[in-house]
């Protein structure tokens, strides 16, 4: 059977058996969904691509520990989510550190060479030029607290089911629905002009 017709689990098994092409098929299947998910989560394309690649690297090196009791899509989204949350927290800490100037490991002695908060720029890629409404929506999503942002992006950007989102976030179904609803409520306040 051609690789593109095999299930995710079959591809994982084949990769474990040394079939590198099978892992190539996994990448091919999930590279854009994961990149899109991370892009909408972080609102930074370059960072999204970097973390998406890191997601596949983590998956590859953890193949032996992957249990097929989980849907692979849930597994890979969970890894991507955890990486994205770690990145957000790292950004937050760096902002804090840049303000407090606690460290002195810079090049020019002014205490902030390494801890400048990264900007939330988007790549000037023509494919990414979005209209004003899209930019406003993207910024509104990016301003949500992470726990609501994960839920809303998985639901309304990625179209994942409540059950799958609950598994990715390792939460109960009720809490998951509540977070999606709360996240949308926060977005409503930020996007009032579009009602």
């Amino acid at each position, binding site marked *: 059977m051609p690789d593109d017709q095999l299930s995710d689990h079959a591809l994982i098994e084949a990769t474990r058996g040394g079939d590198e092409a099978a892992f190539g098929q996994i990448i091919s299947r999930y590279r854009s969904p994961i990149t899109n998910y991370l892009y909408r989560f972080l609102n930074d*394309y370059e960072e999204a691509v970097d973390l998406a690649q*890191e997601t596949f690297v983590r998956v590859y090196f953890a193949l032996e520990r992957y249990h097929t009791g989980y849907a692979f899509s849930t597994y890979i989204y969970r890894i991507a989510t955890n990486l994205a949350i770690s990145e957000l927290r790292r950004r937050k800490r760096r902002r804090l550190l840049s303000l407090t100037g606690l460290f*002195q490991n810079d090049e020019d002695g002014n205490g902030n060479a390494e801890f400048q908060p990264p900007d939330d720029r988007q790549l000037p890629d023509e494919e990414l030029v979005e209209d004003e409404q899209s930019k406003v929506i993207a910024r509104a999503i990016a301003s949500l607290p992470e726990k609501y942002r994960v839920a809303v992006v998985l639901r309304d950007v990625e179209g994942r*089911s409540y059950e799958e989102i609950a598994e990715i976030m390792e939460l109960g179904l009720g809490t998951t629905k509540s977070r999606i609803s709360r996240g949308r409520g926060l977005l409503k306040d930020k996007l009032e002009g579009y009602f």
Partner: protein
Amino acid sequence: MDRNKEDLSFEEQRISELIGTLKQVDAPGNFDVRVRSRIAAGRPAGIRSYWRPLVAGLATAVLIGGAGYLGYQSVSRQPASSMTAATSPQPITAPTMSSPAAVALNAPPAESVTSPNRTASSPVKKGRVDRSADAPSATGGSIDEALKDTQKVGSGAPGRIVTDPQAKADVSVISVLSMIGVDASWNGMGWHVISVKNNSLADRSALRAGDVIDAIDGKPLTNDMKFSGRVTGKSLHIVRDGGPLELSLRP
């Protein structure tokens, strides 16, 4: 896409629709190649790592031997009435060290002799560890550091990292990690644990090779940050298998 069967209010429905208008972005054309390249770059690290435990083991053996020799020298030169002084927290002084090896082992860490000017002029290298600047750490730190750690952590105090509060020089992250039995390298996102010394503080706290340490007591770690003065660490924030985890340091 599972957008059906939701009983939404008008506002929620509208928000969901607005978000649904966002354009889907694709991965760049060279995505697969870059993933393959990163995977390939990860493998040599695994192959290289075979010698690290060996070096760490040898360094530990030399350190223990040196510490034992110094301890024996201190005890043998003390009158019986002052035997307890041999176990006091006072650093072992130079006169007891006669061999070149012992002198080298008791030398202060490279960081402690690094002038601020040197630090300031060093280029910041993301994703790389300047091993030469951390040479003492590769041998497990100085004897003074090792003794301080053992005395303070092993005396029934809560598990924690403790550096010398009187130290005027800065201590690098790799030195602090070395004090708790961790050999790690900076991977661009955190300190990737290469090995954990058996029965060290890190080992007892369930840290494993492969974990990535990104914060101590909630303080984020970077490649080249320095700790100055007293540093107490009671917990490590790590990433394990892609997931964040908080480890309490156990005595």
